[in-house]
C-alpha cells in the first residue's frame, strides 16, 4: 500500500510529467487512476437518480411509456449505439497504441474516436430536431394522443434529461480527446507516461456504458419479438 520511496524511482532524471508532490511516476499514475474511478462512481449515482425516476414512472405508466417510446426513431437509435460501441473499440485501440508507444496509430485512433463521437452527436441532433418538429417536447407545445397525453410528457421529460445529460458528457469527452490529441502531438505522452490516455479511455467507456443502458430503456420498450 505504501508508495515507493524516491530512492527506488530512478531519482537522477525525474520524468517531466512527474508532479513534485508525488514520489514517483507510478504513485502519480495510481493516484490519477483511482481518482478517475472515484469520479466515475459519482457519475453512476448522478445518472442513477434520473434512472430511478424513470423506473418508478415506467412501472406506474407502462402503456404510455411504450406508446411514447415507439415514437423514437429505432433506426437512428440503433445506428448511434453501433457508432458508440465502435468508438469505444477505437478508444481501446488508442490506449493499446499508447502503451506500445506507437504515436502515429495513437493519434489516428484518437481522431477516429472523435469523429465517431461527433457522428453520434450529429445523429442525436437530428433526432432532437425531429422531436421538436413533431411536438414531442414536453411543455406548452406538446401534442400527443389524448389518452396518453400527460404520461407521455413524463416519458419525454425523462428522455430529454437523460439523453441531454449523456450528450453533454459526450461533448466533454470530445474536449478531453482534443486535449489528449494535443498532448500526444506535443510529445507530452510517451512510453512512460500513458496514464492520461488510459483514464480518458475509462471516461469514454463509461459514457458508452451509460448509453448501453439508455438505449434499451428508452428505445426498446415493448419492441421485443412477439410484442404488438
Amino acid at each position, binding site marked *: 500500500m505504501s508508495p515507493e520511496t524516491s530512492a527506488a524511482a530512478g531519482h537522477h532524471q525525474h520524468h517531466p510529467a512527474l508532479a513534485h508532490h508525488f514520489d514517483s511516476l507510478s504513485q502519480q499514475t495510481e493516484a490519477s487512476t483511482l481518482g478517475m474511478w472515484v469520479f466515475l462512481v459519482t457519475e453512476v449515482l448522478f445518472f442513477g437518480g434520473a434512472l430511478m425516476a424513470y423506473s418508478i414512472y415506467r412501472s406506474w405508466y407502462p402503456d404510455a411509456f411504450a406508446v411514447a417510446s415507439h415514437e423514437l426513431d429505432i433506426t437512428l437509435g440503433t445506428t448511434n449505439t453501433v457508432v458508440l460501441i465502435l468508438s469505444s473499440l477505437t478508444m481501446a485501440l488508442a490506449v493499446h497504441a499508447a502503451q506500445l508507444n506507437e504515436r502515429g496509430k495513437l493519434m489516428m485512433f484518437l481522431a477516429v474516436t472523435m469523429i465517431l463521437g461527433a457522428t453520434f452527436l450529429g445523429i442525436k441532433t437530428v433526432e432532437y430536431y425531429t422531436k421538436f418538429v413533431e411536438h414531442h417536447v414536453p411543455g406548452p407545445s406538446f401534442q400527443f394522443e*389524448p389518452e*396518453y397525453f*400527460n404520461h407521455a410528457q413524463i416519458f419525454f421529460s425523462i428522455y430529454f434529461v437523460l439523453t441531454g445529460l449523456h450528450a453533454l458528457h459526450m461533448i466533454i469527452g470530445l474536449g478531453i480527446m482534443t486535449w489528449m490529441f494535443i498532448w500526444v502531438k506535443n510529445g507530452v505522452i510517451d512510453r512512460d507516461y500513458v496514464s492520461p490516455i488510459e483514464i480518458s479511455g475509462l471516461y469514454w467507456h463509461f459514457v458508452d456504458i451509460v448509453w448501453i443502458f439508455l438505449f434499451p430503456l428508452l428505445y426498446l420498450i415493448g419492441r421485443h419479438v412477439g410484442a404488438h
Partner: protein
Amino acid sequence: MASHVDALYFFLIGLTAFFSMLIAGTIVFYAVKFRRRSPDSVGARIEGGLVLELTWSIIPFFIVLFIFGWGARVFFAMSRPPEETLNVYVVGKQWMWKFQHLNGQREINELHVPVGRAVKLIMTSEDVIHDVFVPAFRVKADVIPGRYTHLWFQPTKPGRYHLFCAEYCGTKHSGMVGQVVVQEPDEYEAWLATGRAEGSLASAGGKLFQDLACNTCHRPDAQGRGPILQGLYGKTITLASGERQVVDEAYLRESILNPGEKVTQGFQPVMPAYQGLVTEDGVLQLIEYVKSLQSGALTAPLRPATGGPAAGETRPARGNEVR
C-alpha cells in the same frame, strides 16, 4: 391518543436527561479528578476495552429497540382508523382550508366535529403540498396534490383547538390556520342542521354525474360502455393488465381524471380524461355519489330533515381516545 404520544415523549425526556447528566457528570468528575498537575505530565496509556465497547453498544441497541417498538405501536394506532368513522373531506389550497361535510355543509378554516366520535379526514390539495396539524390531538398529515391522504382522531373534550398548516406552502403559509371546534353531540347536530339547502355531497355528485354525461356510459345495467358503478365502491376488481385493484377513493379519483392506465378488464380504454374539466371539489362529490350507489338503487337518498344518519355518516365508533 394524545396521552399515548405524551407518555412516550416524557419517557424520552427522562432518558435524555439521564444520559446527558450521566455524560456531563462523568466529564466534570474526570475533569476535576484528572486535571493536569504539572505542565509536562501526560495521560495513562490505555488503549481500550472490548468488554466496555460491547457493553455500551449492546445496551443502547436494546434501549433503542424498545423505543422503536413503543413508537411503532403508537404509530399503528394512529395509522388505522376504526371501522366506522365520521368522514370529512378536506381540500387545502393556497392559503385556506375547505372542509366538506357529507351532508353538504361546507366550512372554510373551521371544522366542527362532535365529541366522542372517531373522525376521519380525507384530504387533497389543489396546488402545492400543505399539511393538516392539530397539536392538541397530536395528529399531522401532509396534504398532497394529485392524491388522497388520511388522518383520524377522536376528540374527548369540547373546545376550540388550533389547526395549522405544517408544510411550507408559500406567502401565507403561517396564515393558513384554523380551528377544530369540538361540540357536544346535540350542539353538533344542531349546527349540522343549519346546512345548506343544496343537499349532501352525494346528491351534488349525482347532479354532476349527469352534467358531465357520466351516465351515458356508466349505466346501472349491462348496456353501458363503462363498468357498472352500483355497489362498486370497496370491491376488488381486475384491471386490463391482469392486476387486482381495490376500488377506493384514490382509484375513483384516478379513473375520473386519467382513466387510461387502469382500465377495468373487459372494457375498452375509451373514457375521456376529465383532468381540468372537474375541480377537486367536484371529484369529491362524484366519489361520494359513487359510494352512495347501492346495487339496485339509482340515486343517493337526501339527508332527512330531522336527525338520523345521512348517506356516508356512520354510527359512533369505539376505539382509542384522543385526550
